């Protein structure tokens, strides 16, 4: 697949005040407890004719939301109910703010919206700062049970086909927590020579790519994956999408197993690639348990026009 000029299809708003959702659209969001997910109220006050839909509860298999003051529960593994959700909202243009939503909720919502041809824009608000220790010392012990629930497919993205391991490339989208990388490698057991890590460069801060290398050093070193590292802008799903596309083009018969253990925009890029890339893709996710205090404040808002990407890929 080739997309002309590879546009990044992103509008960047330097302050949250400078963004207002377009009229006659819907705005689906959730509140995670992180400060940066709490902007919707002020946007709602400023927006005109925008239907704000809050996802009030996220559970493993379903979510609750309120549409026109009416509560509804939607199963994540039900294309009928997901489509019903969007239909009930009834807008051709919709924003999906993933900042305060879990992967298991926003990923099936993107899939469903694109299937219905909704003009979908994904919103992501960057934090003011990360509060957690981005550069852990050797000897720090990470409690994975307080961090992940374990590997299982994202709702709607299970793939049951067995593939020849010789044809599989494992692409971890790396974050700071090397222990998550260790865990997925232990579970997936990819061939060392077919591990192609992707690191977010440029990162949210200039030093973050180095923290990423440092946090993931043991596995990168042990598997010699350092020699195969690729880079994609940490906050850009489209850049990630194109890097994945390049990898796929270089390995035309391969299946790509992509582990979503890095940034949220990268996860969006991987989900989009699974939906639109036209290749055999398996997503690996370890379901982290997010802590409210992991970030502080909020900075820029990024609006990704994923619908436009779906049109570009449909025409190629």
């Amino acid at each position, binding site marked *: 697949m080739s997309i002309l000029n590879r546009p990044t299809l992103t509008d960047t708003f330097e302050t949250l005040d400078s963004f207002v959702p377009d009229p006659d659209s819907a705005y689906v969001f959730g509140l995670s407890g992180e400060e940066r997910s709490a902007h919707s109220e002020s946007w709602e006050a400023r927006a005109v004719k925008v239907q704000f839909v809050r996802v009030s509860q996220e559970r493993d298999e379903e979510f609750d939301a309120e549409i026109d003051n009416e509560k509804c529960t939607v199963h994540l593994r039900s294309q009928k109910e997901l489509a019903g959700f969007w239909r009930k909202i009834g807008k051709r243009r919709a924003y999906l703010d993933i900042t305060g939503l879990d992967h298991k909720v926003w990923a099936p919502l993107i899939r469903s919206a694109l299937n219905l041809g909704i003009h979908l824009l994904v919103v992501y608000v960057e934090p003011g700062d990360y509060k957690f220790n981005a550069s852990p010392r050797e000897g720090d012990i990470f409690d994975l049970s307080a961090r992940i629930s*374990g590997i299982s497919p994202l709702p709607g993205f299970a793939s049951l086909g067995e593939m020849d391991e010789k044809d599989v490339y494992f692409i971890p989208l790396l974050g700071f927590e090397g222990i998550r990388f260790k865990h997925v490698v232990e579970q997936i057991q990819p061939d060392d020579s077919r591990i192609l890590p992707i690191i977010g460069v440029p990162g949210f801060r200039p030093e973050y790519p180095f923290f990423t290398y440092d946090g993931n050093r043991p596995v990168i070193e042990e598997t010699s994956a350092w020699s195969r590292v690729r880079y994609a802008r940490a906050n850009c799903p489209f850049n990630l999408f194109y890097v994945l596309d390049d990898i796929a083009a270089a390995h035309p018969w391969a299946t790509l197993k992509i582990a979503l253990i890095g940034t949220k925009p990268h996860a969006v890029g991987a989900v989009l690639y699974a939906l639109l890339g036209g290749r055999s893709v398996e997503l690996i996710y370890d379901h982290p348990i997010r802590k409210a205090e992991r970030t502080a404040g909020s900075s820029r808002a990024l609006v990704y026009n994923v619908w436009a990407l779906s049109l570009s890929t449909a025409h190629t």
Partner: protein
Amino acid sequence: MDIENNISAEEQLSRLFGGYRAEWLKEKIFDLFTAPAYLPELSDNRPCMLIGGRGTGKTTVLRGLSYEGQFALTGSDASSISTWSYYGLYYRVNTNRVTAFRGSELTENQWIQLFAHYFNLLLCDALLQFLEWYQLKTGTTLSLPAHASKEITTSLHLPDAASFKEITEKLSISRIAFEASINNVADRQIPPLTMQGAPIDTLLRVITSHPPFVGKSFYFLIDEYENFEPYQQQVVNTLIKHSGQLYTFKIGVRDLGIRRKATLNPNEQLISPSDYVRIDISDKLKDKQFEDFALKVCNDRIRRLNIPDAQIISDIRDLLPSLSEDAEAIELGVEELVSSPKAQLFALFPEHAKAIGSLHPLFIYFLSEWAVANKSDLQSAFSDYLSSQDKWATRFGNYKHSALFGIRKGKRGIQRYYAGWDVFIQMAASNIRYLLELVDQSLLNHLQRQGKLNQPVSHKDQTYAAQRVGKKNLSELEGLSVHGAQLTKLLLSLGRVFGQLASDPIGHAPEVNQFHLAEASEERNQITQTESAVVGILESAVMHLALLRWPGNKLGAEGDTRDYDYTIHPVFSAFFVFSYRKKRKMLLSPDDILGLVNSPQRTIPEILKRHNRTEEPLPEQLEIFKGFYEHS
């Protein structure tokens, strides 16, 4: 595996010894295959459960039984394929697939039906892939009569197909449809499901009616059975229980990975030996058997080194020399330590100067430490020795090994040597992966210090290697399971306790490096929350090889957690500096275990105090965990 001679010795070693995981070796696995002694038991027609910890060689053996493995191991001779007595089909349970079959949308009974169907598709697909491979390798075409095809497609709810290839294609489409229904399982639009085992039986009946396969068996080699959900194990157990002439199962599973022994009939259990042969690798590869196996594995790999114009010591035992206890004591600097007591003895007992001169410094060290520990003095101790030499010989025999731990107490650098093939065999505790790691790291250290492979590896390099392997595996524990942090913390705390007990040996029970759990009081049968948490931690620790366990005094085959004795896996002994030998045990309560995990700062000194010890400063290699020991 052919190794080109232009590759450096380090790189060659890394390829031969560094790829100690079957999963990493992938297709190279068969080049380095060494048959373990229990292979014949596994190769017959009965269902088997191959039980062993991570790194004990389950995957290697199962893949060796697969048709790809057999082909490679028989010299890739296509003409021999039709003469094989069985064909093995390898499948590793994939967590990312099997966890799709759970969730509150359906009841467990409904999931059972869906999973049983998925498993049918999976095994049928594996059989069809094998047929494709067989035809490709042998240059034959297997015909498929119309009635046979109809039987297969009907049992799988597939449209009509004219050949095995077409069935494979239709099965793939059916699988995609099934995948879509699982991805939308709450919509409950489930395609027609197959009956458990029925399509496998049908397909195999057709396959075994073809001349090359008449009278042949098919083995489903299921690896990492522990990854199945408990109800999924029941589904597979049912197939195992009722497998017969056409096919059988060879299951690879970790210790404690069998979570349900029942079949789908709640009154029916999978029982060994009537339903399956239980092959416990740690039993089968014990002591001498393991050593012989390991020796063959290592020496086979050394033989493959291809370094022009270089002589290579061909026997790993000669490459990794050991140290006697006496020699080790000298290396550790015991002579310097005993110079003053020895001079004192000469002064006190001039008439025994010859005898004193002939005493090994380690004995003099022991004698003087014994005197201090028993609030006596050197003169009395030596007088007692002169009058009761047999008693002292026994006493020294009991403490000789443990005395080595005290020589460099509180000093920097190597506290004890962990060197020698025999020592590595004990440290590996029947785990071939650990042994290869120890050998690999030792040889790499040796080469990095400009050593040659015609020279033995120094005791120092072996010891540093042993420490490094311990540290590496400790840090890997975290990622092994979701609860890896608890295991890491337990290991750090227990290791510290045993390390401290070892460093102050004389006057105390020597070589305490095991524990057992305190009995619950008889009047209280209820399991407390603490006990139940401890059971979970200990079982997980055994499953992931942080701990080893074996039945205690009063136990038959299986019992509850209290009936076992536990020890830290000896591969960690060099890192924490305690004895790799299985010796004496201490009593710990469930509260102690939880305390070691959750509040080591308080619990470690408490346990040491009960054993009349106090905590000393951390040794160098543990300093990176200072934060854990001091602030947890």
